[in-house]
């Protein structure tokens, strides 16, 4: 990352509602959103998992043919991306005057359709629906995004843990620096289904599985949320999560001056938070932990942290924001944003 880059647009769909404002309001309240129960029959009983779902009310899914039969993850992504892009840039993109790249990061992807399709396959593969299968592919949501904004610019989907969003920002910065695109949407999203919700709770029943999407628009410009430092993530193959979290903090070199906000990735599950808690133990400045309010949205979580950071800078309350993301099983990552 050699040139100046700014986050000039943000978009979010979370259990707090559709839009960044709803998310920021929830974060300001600091109250965990009330979960609902995801239930399914299993054997003679019912399996119940508390989850945080995106409310149906107030949906801002864009009207676009390809989104009609998509899984919720694509609808969340489209709404967040459109909010981040804004009407003017959307018009420029669809008119071919603005070349917008799309990078989509995720952990689970289209689990609803994967669940339905594989269920049909096990019942009788000869009758499995050809409509469902294409939507099970990891890059289906990002494909819909490029189509929605009418952009033939590069489009990449990256799989990883929640810290993968920072890898997405890194790739976007590369595209912008090379001139491959005028700007780039970096989007992360997940949707809830018993498949992924129960899977997360196998790690700890204290997890609160959540869904949603976050999107930023990144371009070479001035703005209230400039990218000051985006270090290479510290991968876990030769470093435990604790060492990686500490290395990341050291590399980010954030100034604990009271005017710098820390947005961390703690979810409230002590065993899994411990490495990050330890790495940032002596941080005395202000600190936000969005997952404690919005739940564990896995692949989407890193995006929601970055959006919260960008919004905090826009508010003018902080001079810098440092974001720490200690991923579940890939890497520790982070970013330093400033005015």
């Amino acid at each position: 990352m050699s040139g100046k880059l700014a986050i000039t647009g943000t978009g979010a769909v979370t259990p707090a509602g559709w839009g960044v404002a709803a998310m920021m309001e929830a974060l300001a309240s600091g109250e965990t959103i009330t979960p609902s129960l995801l239930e399914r029959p299993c054997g003679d009983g019912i399996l119940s998992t508390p989850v945080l779902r995106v409310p149906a009310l107030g949906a801002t899914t864009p009207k676009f043919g390809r989104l009609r039969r998509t899984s919720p993850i694509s609808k969340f992504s489209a709404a967040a991306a459109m909010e981040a892009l804004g009407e003017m840039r959307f018009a420029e993109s669809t008119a071919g005057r603005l070349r917008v790249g799309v990078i989509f990061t995720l952990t689970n992807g289209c689990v609803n359709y994967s669940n339905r399709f594989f269920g049909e396959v096990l019942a009788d593969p000869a009758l499995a629906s050809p409509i469902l299968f294409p939507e099970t592919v990891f890059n289906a949501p990002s494909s819909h995004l490029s189509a929605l904004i009418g952009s033939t610019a590069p489009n990449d989907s990256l799989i990883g843990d929640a810290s993968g969003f920072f890898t997405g920002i890194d790739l976007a910065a590369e595209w912008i620096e090379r001139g491959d695109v005028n700007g780039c949407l970096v989007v992360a999203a997940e949707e809830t289904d018993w498949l992924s919700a129960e899977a997360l709770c196998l790690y700890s029943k204290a997890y609160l599985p959540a869904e949603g999407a976050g999107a930023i628009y990144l371009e070479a410009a001035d703005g209230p949320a400039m990218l000051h430092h985006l270090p290479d993530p510290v991968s876990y193959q030769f470093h435990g999560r604790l060492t990686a979290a500490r290395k990341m903090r050291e590399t980010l070199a954030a100034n604990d001056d009271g005017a710098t906000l820390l947005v961390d990735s703690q979810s409230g599950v002590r065993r899994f938070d411990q490495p990050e808690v330890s790495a940032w133990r002596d941080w005395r400045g202000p600190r936000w932990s969005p997952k404690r309010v919005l739940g564990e949205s896995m692949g989407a979580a890193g995006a929601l942290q970055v959006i919260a950071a960008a919004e905090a800078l826009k508010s003018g309350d902080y001079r810098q924001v440092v974001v720490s993301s200690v991923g579940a099983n890939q890497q520790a990552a982070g970013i330093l944003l400033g005015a």
Partner: protein
Amino acid sequence: MVVTGAGVVSPMGMDFTENAAGFRAGRTAFSPVTLFDVSRQRVGTAGQIDLPETGFPSRMDRGSQLAWLAAREALAAAGLSGGTMPMIVGTSAAAMPIGEDYYRAAQSPTQSRRAQLHRVETYQAQRQMVDMASLLEIDGRIRIVSNACASGANAIGQAFHLVRMGRAERVLAGGYDALCQLVFAGFDALQALSPSGIPRPFDAARDGLALGEGAGFMVVESAAAAKSRGARVIAEITGYGAATDVHHLTQPHPNGDAALITMQTACAMAGVSPEQIDYINSHGTGTPLNDVAEGNAIRRWAGDAVSSIKVSSTKSAIGHLLGGAGAVESVICLMAMEGQWLPASLMVREADPVCTFDLIREPREAPVRRTLTNSFGFGGANATLIFEKEGLP
């Protein structure tokens, strides 16, 4: 940017040498699928690899086993035993067979929580790739690209750019995918599989693709870094283009608009014109729509030179390797340049009229200095790579 090592595992063979011998001889490598039940599918064959049952770490899924074998060969060929370098990997289905096991077990109320947690953890591609990097003794960041059938080509293209921009001296890059029931049934549901099990890319009466499995990896390195350690240079990577086809989720634009962009972009980057390309390893799936789109794109890209452009699809021999396809086909391009021969589009009875180019129907000896490979994926991810033998440092 040079390639100093390459490795490949495909239905054709377990390493570079076996694969080169198979493609040069014009062999095909399809067999009955035994990994899962196909009795209710329209098609029962694929490019399935006869993989040893032992010799792999217990946590490793089938796809990662293939990736590990190919990556290990690439590193050894490059004269490297690990080191600090980024790893960029493409996959479409990742560890889906483990996900399938999790799904089946989740329907049973008696399944142990511990076994399910193990499945959840090892299903995740990043977990598998972190473990693979550890086994390969590679310390560096890991990027996992999932652009459907273009994943492997995009991974190599991204590695090319990382080195080109000076962000890494060398990168281990490639792609992989193993056969799995969900994806096999998906392509069958779409009626994209050839009912005969014999794909005939660019045949006028082609009726679909065959699936396969495999992995291809290469070490992409700066020429200076390769020279400084005295590494053998296999080829240069001189061009890469990526674009998005927004026509439809699963169908390419019939004129091949995005494919045209990627070929033009890659050629402009490489500073070459179409007539300087000695061979195109096409995406060539054998589906009616894909081959028309790609044929039209090649015609528009090559213009008057089209009749001299040599094209084949090696998917006719090993099937469509999905996330592994672009990487394996890139390695096949390296084989062709090393051995100075062209692999063929096999089983073509009558070429489709869209083939205004020189369709290679049997392997042939030829001077091969520059090769181009196309990869197009579900969702519209298109990628083109150009490899070059001449002008090596």
